[in-house]
């Protein structure tokens, strides 16, 4: 018998109990998902800024870079190329994938209030690896796209199709592997800033 047949036969021979499907579960949640998002993302070491509308994005990006004394260069994935970038003269845009010290913009189609999480389905115009290659990720999300729970995001995506890679990102990359003490920027971004568009 093949390993597959063998294993399945072994499971069928041994499985004894009948077990009913678990009841559905709804995690406790605060009333306001955006407020919860800001609170949790901040606790997870992300820097959150509220902006009024899309036109403020380029200026906000330029300010974030300046505040960290970083060069005014940002890597822009295809799905963010249509933003009104010209409103921030002096901010250079790169199309190539970012390196470990570079800043990159990322558009998050969904957020999760329960945990302050950004959800990024991979797509042709939204390469998944950018979320891990960059040293500084600047995420952009609309307030109305911040849902309460991970299950809500899954339901929205399942309504169309799940992408090959679905990344849930909460705060910058971190490790506690040396003396169980938090260090940010293990392999992925050292800094995560989130711009929430309120309009």
């Amino acid at each position, binding site marked *: 018998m*093949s*390993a*597959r047949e*063998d*294993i*399945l036969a*072994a*499971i*069928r021979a*041994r*499985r*004894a109990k*009948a*077990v*009913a*499907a*678990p*009841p559905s*579960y709804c*995690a*406790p949640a605060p009333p306001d998902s955006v407020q919860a998002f800001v609170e949790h993302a901040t*606790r*997870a070491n992300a820097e959150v800024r509220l902006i009024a509308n899309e036109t403020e994005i380029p200026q906000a990006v330029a300010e974030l870079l300046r505040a960290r004394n970083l060069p005014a260069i940002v890597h822009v994935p295809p799905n963010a190329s249509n933003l009104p970038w010209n409103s921030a003269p002096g901010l250079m845009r790169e199309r190539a*994938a970012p390196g*470990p010290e570079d800043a990159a913009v990322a558009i998050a189609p969904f957020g999760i209030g*329960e*945990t*302050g*999480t950004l959800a990024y389905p*991979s797509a*042709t115009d939204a*390469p*998944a*690896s950018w*979320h*891990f290659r960059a040293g500084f990720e600047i995420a952009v999300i609309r307030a109305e796209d911040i849902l309460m*729970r*991970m*299950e809500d995001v*899954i339901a929205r995506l399942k309504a169309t199709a*799940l992408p*090959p*890679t*679905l*990344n*849930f990102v*909460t705060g910058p*990359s971190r*490790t*506690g*592997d*040396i*003396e169980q*003490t938090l*260090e940010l*920027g*293990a*392999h*992925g*971004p050292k800094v995560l800033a989130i711009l929430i568009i309120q309009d």
Partner: protein
Amino acid sequence: MTLDPRAFREAGRAALHDPSLRIALGRLKTHFALGRARAVERYGDWEALREQGRAIRDYALAHLDTLLEEFERNVVARGGQVHWARDAKEAREIVLRILREAGAKSVTKGKSMVSEEIALNPYLDANGVEPVETDLGEYIVQLRREPPSHIIAPAFHLNKEDVAKTFREAHTALDPDRPLVERTELVAEARALLRARFESADAGITGANFLTAEEGAAVLVTNEGNGDLTRLLPKTHIVLTGLEKVVANLEHAAVLLRLLTRSATGQDISSYVTVMNGPRAPDESDGPQNFHVVLVDNGRTRLLGTDAEEVLRCIRCAACLNHCPIYAAVGGHTYGATYTGPIGAALNPGLMGVGVAHRHPNASTFCGRCAEVCPVKIPLPTIMRHWRAREYASGLAPKSMTAGLGAWAFFAKRPALYRFAAGIVACALKFLARNGRVHSLPLLHNWFLVRDFPAPQGKTFHALWTARQ
């Protein structure tokens, strides 16, 4: 360093006298246990969540065959492949075959305990494929040629000075006079070196925290982002995992995630949770072109339907280790096995055989903390007792223990004699005591090194009871 669960006692003795290990183990309480307690409190109705987690895992185990078939169908439908391995040897061979077909010479690895369990790295090395561990802790222990000492913190036993020394010895191409004192410097050095390895790897191997049948997806949790670079940059991605990791759907996995990260590191969620659903789409610019899942049995199905079955609910959060007085005393390497602490004690006799791992279920004070903190309510001490009974039945229990139990049984079956003997022992203890406490007894020297007990006061229980009637 070789792994030998039979040498538990000798290894434990050495560990107890290792001063730098004592410092590292001190961090269990201050870092892990405290973080978990706070996260649990923040959550609200933790008990309801645990109950849901238990039900989800029980449902999955009761439908393991159909869920695995459904998982396989859906992986294939999305352009991936599923491989089944009965044991460690088969699993190693499958992985090597996939790597050979991909022409892979170097492979990056996200942390996978199953990879440790099947001893994959030495096998790949011997067969001309270079494995590079990319989880920082796992990378450190790989450089030191040590196994991980903790299931979620592989380098738990080390202090930063140890890591600095390891890096200086291994990273010989770097300036020998570079500063390497702060943790930040150590992390930055590993980040830079490993990024180059990610970019040049031909294949990537990760574990999975959950497999979801309905979607054919593998769900991976990391804090560093190393699992994602391992999946996304090379051409071929292999998910290597135990077959018991399957659950019905992504919604079930979402519930278990809430339990996992809070129990593990005290985080409401880890920095990265990734749903890995087949290879890249044809028009995508990154992601793997080939996607494989290797389902490893290696003793797991054998546990179904036994008294130890519930151990298969485990989601490998390590909370039981972090709250275990034995683990806190001897550390992970003492176990000589991949799985350590209470989960090791409950799982290893099943995976490795009672004859090999029978010391593990004996390494317990039966304080019960592990079962209290286990997010999926595994009755760990009960399962350890099950293995102890099996050990006794197969004649593996130490001679002193069988003799002692035999002597006790002899008296217990003869109540008059028992009462008489108990009276004599009580008198003798009173006689041996100083200031009302017994400080030593023949044959129990080690036990009394760190404790004593009060001398019997007055009459035996039997005598008191008879008097009351």
